[in-house]
């Protein structure tokens, strides 16, 4: 856990504060994104955690220990550090770069080699690249080497300063996904700095929105920041389409789906018609022992004895419980229907109606 308590920083020669009375608690295994415009002191805050910059006042604790009582070199070796420009050593091969911190703390060569191979696999770096020099890599590859290097000795904390700022948007999105995926396996305490609010929303468990002069405006989950911005500054900073952004953050499983008009294939047609009438629809979903077969309407049921004989048609809009509400809305709109079936690996979970999504939308704005 990392705790910043009333931390301020004034650089000598500059009148104002770079960071002012800044307090923040970062839980273990959590990804916290520091986001703000330039001049908000977000990078200064990050660099105070590993003492590349020392605070003018206030305390920073890592696992209850004041960082000022730890040797800077020791402290830094316990924290992975990734910067925008990466700073790979041009005179060392990719493998040597990844193994740098391991070498620094005196691991035997064999252990370093094994660890480098493991990290390369984890970050999907071709083993062939390991013997090359950084100048021979693409931007995205270099960035992954930078992350692999920071993970070298498996530090519990990762500090990342605009880690994906230097790559093009497509590569950036891929690296972000990779980081999310990686983080779900390794559960590091990550403190990440960015100026990109969308990146913050995508990566952060919690986001600290920082105003100029290092003033904390709001510290909350992305969903909460979108639902209830704490100040006009936050509202401006998160920008337009707040409602849609919030839908993008909410999983289908987080809202109550309706069971909907439901029958099994053995149901007699009159019973099915009765289900339609009670739900006010002209169709029913057909579910067989938990599996969604499709739907049939009243017209389709005529001249049949049971629902199963009528050959149910598949739903055009199908989403999974882990899809976002935004994806669900998209599926509903694109398929010109007003309902999406929620299916988890073949199992029927319920129906999500356009009205239900709209309710969330109004709650968001």
């Amino acid at each position, binding site marked *: 856990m990392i705790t910043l308590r009333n931390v301020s920083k004034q650089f000598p020669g500059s009148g104002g504060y770079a960071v002012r009375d800044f307090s923040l608690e970062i839980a273990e295994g959590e990804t916290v994104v520091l986001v703000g415009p330039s001049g908000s002191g977000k990078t200064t805050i990050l660099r105070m955690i590993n003492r590349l910059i020392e605070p003018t006042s206030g305390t920073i604790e890592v696992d209850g220990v004041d960082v000022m009582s730890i040797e800077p*070199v020791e402290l*830094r070796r316990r924290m992975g*550090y990734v910067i925008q420009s*990466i*700073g790979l*050593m*041009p005179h060392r091969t990719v493998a040597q770069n990844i193994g740098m911190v391991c070498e620094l703390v005196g691991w035997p060569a064999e252990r370093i080699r094994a660890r480098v191979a493991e990290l390369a696999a984890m970050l999907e770096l071709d083993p062939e690249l390991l013997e090359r020099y950084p100048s021979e890599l693409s931007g995205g590859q270099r960035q992954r080497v930078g992350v692999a290097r920071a993970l070298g000795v498996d530090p519990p904390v990762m500090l990342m300063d605009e880690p994906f700022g230097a790559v093009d948007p497509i590569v950036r999105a891929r690296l972000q996904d990779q980081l999310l995926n990686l983080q779900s396996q390794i559960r590091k305490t990550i403190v990440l700095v960015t100026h990109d609010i969308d990146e913050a929303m995508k990566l952060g468990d919690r986001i600290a929105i920082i105003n100029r002069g290092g003033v904390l405006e709001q510290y909350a989950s992305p969903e909460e920041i979108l639902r209830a911005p704490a100040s006009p500054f936050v509202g401006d900073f998160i920008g337009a389409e707040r409602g849609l952004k919030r839908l993008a953050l909410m999983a289908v499983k987080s809202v109550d789906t309706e069971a909907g008009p439901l029958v099994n294939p053995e149901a007699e047609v009159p019973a099915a018609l009765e289900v339609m009438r009670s739900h006010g629809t002209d169709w029913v979903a057909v579910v067989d022992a938990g599996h969604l077969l499709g739907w049939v309407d009243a017209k389709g049921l005529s001249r049949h004895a049971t629902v199963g004989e009528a050959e149910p048609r598949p739903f055009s809009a199908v989403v999974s419980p882990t899809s976002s509400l935004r994806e669900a809305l998209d599926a509903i709109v694109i398929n010109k229907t007003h309902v999406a079936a929620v299916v988890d690996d073949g199992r029927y979970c319920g129906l999500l109606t356009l009205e239900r999504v709209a309710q969330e939308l109004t709650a968001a704005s």
Partner: protein
Amino acid sequence: MTPPDVLVDWSWLGTHTSEIGHLAIQHVQLTVIAVVIGLAISLPVGIAAYRHHRIYGPLSGFAGLLYTIPSLALFALLVPYTGLSTTTAEIGLVSYTLLILIRNIVSGLEGVPSDVREAARGMGYSDRQLLWRVEIPLALPVIIAGVRIATVTTIGLVTVTALIGQGGLGALILQGYRQDFPTPAYAGAVLSVVLAVLSDVVLLTIQRLLTPWAKPAEVRQSVETVVPAAMAGA
């Protein structure tokens, strides 16, 4: 010296090969000692100047002043104190390497990309580890480029040390003048140029081997720019 009847007396060269060889070896020795001592002084001084930029101005001013003193005048100034000795020769030769070496060491260290330095510090490199494992290796191409220029310059200057009786290929040139017989003078001049070119190629090869990561284009310094320096010295 009157114009020669023949340009080169080949038979004289044939009978004096061992003497010429001996002088060439002396020449190399004087050069190597000067460059090694120059480097031993310049490295700590250059590192200090890089770390504390305030001392760099005065330091390079002083080294620059040494560099401007004509070699003959410097030797003449030293002779009353250190005599017609190797010490006198080396003091002069070393002084001339300092400006080149210190400047290249400082600019080599300053050329280390700041992101590389920051990343290394952020990973937990101590100042010393940063210097020896990151900054010096990365400055090496520029430092060796300095050593190459210093070496070639010194080879040229060593010819002058013959005037204070320290041998080297300059002795041949001197002999040619004194005896009004051009062959030894030509031999001395040509050989010192050959030495300069050879040592430059050797140092360039060493640099390529030590810094396989560096792109040749960034550190290449062609032989053509080096030869005139040797000629000027001779």
